[in-house]
């Protein structure tokens, strides 16, 4: 029942998302006499995929050509020979220069560059800006979403924990929906892959990472237009944690297996020529596994957003009675699939992390019964 409710809420949200984009894109379409509508949509999508220095809900253009943005400005924190903190409203969405402590900064393609007083940006031959980029620690839209998700998770799961204490081991409310998922992660992800003895110490990480990715994926489907899990810095940070935990909890067997994968199955002079190839591959696998994790999540979420927004954009390109409803229903179907993908990617990330922890913490006699498992890990 609750599951059904969640799906309904998400459906409504996705419909709203579609309409919200419609409203803004339409306005731009009217205004877009100079610009080609296809380029406009392309720019809009690529802008959406990136992190933003302000929390904008939507934007439109007035008849007089003035852009109107509905949203909240966020604090900008940059390190440029000292810490500078100012509101992102100073940039006016990239339209004006921000003057802070005598320095001028310009927002160009969602990145902050240091410029001179007139705001010129120098390009190299590949059209990349060559201006100095100050180190940017801004509270961007993604950071805000991470904080919101964190607070939501904290509230949800502490209330679940409290409901156990209050109700004598029986969850109440939303906990009834989340408890089976927690149990699923424990019984069908952690226990079989890590083992009965050691799974406990990995559980907090697996649970946190699962719900974190899932919730942020779901937020990505809301009209808020956030793309947190489709950001390479986020997936890199998540995969790095998996990598660090895998290797810091690795047993002696795990390291021995890494540098001596064949063990006693062969004399040393037989192993030597094989190891010249095998050991580098094993060592490379250390990096490849988390790298695959980070690229998989990033690419999936990025692709989902691009496909969905392109289909919505198609409506304004077609502008016909057949084409537009068709792409609307296509967008709707993709939204449904994206809801599944959101859950699936969270599951895959958790499952594979759990598998890597399982390999690392395994204590087995150094035979070769696990020959197939590394292959499985590269899925």
């Amino acid at each position, binding site marked *: 029942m609750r599951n059904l409710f969640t799906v309904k809420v998400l459906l409504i949200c996705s419909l709203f998302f579609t309409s919200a984009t419609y409203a803004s894109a339409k306005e731009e379409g009217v205004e877009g006499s100079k610009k080609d509508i296809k380029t406009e949509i392309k720019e809009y999508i690529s802008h959406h995929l990136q992190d933003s220095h302000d929390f904008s809900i939507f934007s439109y253009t007035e008849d007089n050509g003035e852009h109107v943005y509905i949203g909240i400005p966020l604090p900008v924190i940059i390190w440029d020979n000292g810490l500078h903190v100012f509101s992102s409203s100073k940039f006016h969405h990239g339209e004006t220069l921000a003057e802070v402590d005598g320095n001028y900064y310009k927002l160009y393609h969602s990145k902050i560059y240091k410029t001179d007083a007139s705001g010129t940006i120098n390009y190299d031959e590949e059209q990349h800006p060559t201006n100095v980029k100050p180190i940017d620690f*801004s*509270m961007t839209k*993604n950071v805000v979403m991470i904080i919101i998700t964190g607070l939501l998770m*904290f509230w949800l799961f502490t209330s679940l*924990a409290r409901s156990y204490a209050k109700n004598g081991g029986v969850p109440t409310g939303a906990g009834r929906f989340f408890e089976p998922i927690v*149990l699923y992660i424990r019984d069908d992800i952690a226990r079989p892959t890590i083992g009965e003895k050691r799974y406990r110490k990995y*559980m*907090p990480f697996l649970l946190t990472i699962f719900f974190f990715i899932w919730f942020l994926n779901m937020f990505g489907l809301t009209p808020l237009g956030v793309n947190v899990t489709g950001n390479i810095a986020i997936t890199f940070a998540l995969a790095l944690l998996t990598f660090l935990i895998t290797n810091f909890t690795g047993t002696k067997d795990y390291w021995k297996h890494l540098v001596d994968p064949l063990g006693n199955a062969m004399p040393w002079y037989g192993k030597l020529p094989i190891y010249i190839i095998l050991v580098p591959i094993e060592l490379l696998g250390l990096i490849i596994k988390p790298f695959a994790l980070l690229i998989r999540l990033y690419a999936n979420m990025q692709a989902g957003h691009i496909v969905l927004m392109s289909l919505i954009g198609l409506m304004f390109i077609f502008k016909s009675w057949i084409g537009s409803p068709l792409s609307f229903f296509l967008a709707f179907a993709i939204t449904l699939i994206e809801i599944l993908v959101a859950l699936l990617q969270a599951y895959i990330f958790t499952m594979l992390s759990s598998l890597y922890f399982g390999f690392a913490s395994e204590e087995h006699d150094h035979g070769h019964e696990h020959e197939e498992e590394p292959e499985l890990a590269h899925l």
Partner: protein
Amino acid sequence: MEKLLNDFSFGLFVWQTLLFGLLLLLLYKYAWKPILNAVNDREEGIKNALAAAEDAKKEMQNVTADSEKLLQEARGEREAMLKEAREIKDQMVTDAKDQAKAEGDKMIKQAKATIESEKKAAVAEIKNQVADLSVQIAEKVIREQLTNKEKQLKLVDDMLGDIKLN
């Protein structure tokens, strides 16, 4: 690859790592630990309860078997007691009958003997009385006879005549 590196924001990476680490710690302390403990406790509880129920079932079976056995024993005992009682009753009845018969016989015999002796006594009495009466009659007759000589003589003659006849 170049696009990926260009997209990579170091600031966001730092924020994500810090916030995620903080979230992990907080959730570990205030959510996951109590949740997993509660779930574990509950599962332990269920396991124990099931084991206890199984034990109770076994116990129950034992008790039932015991009571069945007891019932069986009691039934046997009752049967035996009834049989014994019946035997005793029969015995008593037979004894009583025999005794009564013997007593009766004895009483009848006694009665008979009494009757016999009474009869004898009565007969003797009657004889005595008859004898007395005979004597008295004889006396009176004799006295009558002897009042006159002729008669005395006639009597004597009669007697003598009788004697001869005898």
